[in-house]
């Protein structure tokens, strides 16, 4: 379709036509630009706030997981390796688990809550707990005695502070923390830890005290030895000094006699 004269007429006259807009048009344009800019800024702020919220939530969630694992590892470090105490731990874990399941409280990850929960146990369970706790105490005392004896017999052998070896530290499988079914296992172990806490709290200073005692005895023995050595040396000095002075006196006297003669 070709252009016709009417098209050319309109194009020629209206193509370069100018119509001045109102004076307020530019002001309106500037105002709209500012408005849009503010809206865009608000959008950015909202997005930033959302990101911060999500980030903080994730940090909180990760922090909770990390703290749980660290507690678990700490428990594994403190936990005695030998037979009876482990059994005690398992028994306590079982008790705590049953108590928690009966209470219907699943989110007892925090030791403080489980510690206070002990006072709320029913009397039978409390008695069992105390019994087990006493058993644990006895075990610990026995172990302590054993450790003292071995220390006295092997003074030169190197000993660790807690009496635990590195083999006692058990790595916690990371997968066990993730599924919900095994998360309850973590809860029970933590509960056992809280049950162990008073006993362990008593054990630690005692072990430290025995170590301290052993160290003192060794020191005393060393001091005694040194003292003995010093005394001997002093005696030797005295005898030596005595002999020399005597010899000196004798020589002096003989010289005197010679000179008189």
């Amino acid at each position, binding site marked *: *379709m070709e*252009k*016709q*004269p*009417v*098209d050319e*007429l*309109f*194009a020629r*006259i*209206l*193509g*370069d*036509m*100018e*119509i*001045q*807009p*109102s004076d307020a*048009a*530019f002001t*309106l*344009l500037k105002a*709209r*630009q500012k408005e*849009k800019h503010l809206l865009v800024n608000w959008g950015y702020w909202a997005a930033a706030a959302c990101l911060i919220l999500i980030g903080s939530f994730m940090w909180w969630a990760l922090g909770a997981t990390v703290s749980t694992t660290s507690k678990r590892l700490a428990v594994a470090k403190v936990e005695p390796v030998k037979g009876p105490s482990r059994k005690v731990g398992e028994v306590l874990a079982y008790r705590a688990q049953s108590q928690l399941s009966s209470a219907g409280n699943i989110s007892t990850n925090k030791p403080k809550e489980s510690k206070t929960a002990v006072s709320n146990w029913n009397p039978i369970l409390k008695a069992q707990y105390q019994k087990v706790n006493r058993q644990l105490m006895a075990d610990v005392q026995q172990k302590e005695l054993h450790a003292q004896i071995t220390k006295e017999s092997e003074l030169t052998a190197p000993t660790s502070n807690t009496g635990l070896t590195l083999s006692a530290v058990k790595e916690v499988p990371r997968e066990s923390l993730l599924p919900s079914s095994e998360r309850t296992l973590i809860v029970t172990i933590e509960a056992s830890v809280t049950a162990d806490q008073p006993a362990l709290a008593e054990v630690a200073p005692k072990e430290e005290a025995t170590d301290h005692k052993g160290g003192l005895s060794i020191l005393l023995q060393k001091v005694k030895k040194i003292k003995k050595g010093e005394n001997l040396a002093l005696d030797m000095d005295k005898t030596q000094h005595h002999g020399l002075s005597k010899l000196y006196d004798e020589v002096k006297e003989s010289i005197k006699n010679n000179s008189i003669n």
Partner: protein
Amino acid sequence: MSRIIPFFITESQLVKALRGKDARAQKTVYETYAGRMMAVCVRYVSKRADAEEVMIDGFMRVYKKIDQFREEGSFEGWMRRIMVTESLLFLRRNKILQKETPLDELSGESEYQWATETVGAEELLYLISQLPDGYRTVFNLYAIDGYSHAEIAALLGITEGTSKSQLSRGRSLLQQGVKNIQTSNVVKNKGYGKTAS
């Protein structure tokens, strides 16, 4: 084509300043092109107030999309296209383009001899504003702004055949209108001539 603009020696300098969100450059662009862009908008959107709104939106789009201007054609041509697009968007938003035009308004006059000197710009603008929206839009796009029927069809979401038929009907109405204006002008001039003599 490079135009000499106050504060900015060439058009490319002005465009560069616009890219840097320079407020002075924005004002310069507005002051230089507002009149012509307003005329474009008035051709498509008949009401002046609406046309001004469209023009403001168009300038905002120009400032925002200045990075898309590749300096291959003229800056004014690029701005005109933006204004046309904004006008079409306005018409579509207000569902103006969807209105049907009754066919009995059309006249079949096509063989018309022109005497263009007697018709002014305001009168032609008035004639265009009196056209049905669809005809006006197609006529503006094809006759004045140089779009092809294929482009018009794509822009308006119609077929090329519809675009052609709307153009021919629009032309006929405009020819009739111009004829009427010419006749009245001739009568006025004759009357004026009589009283003057």
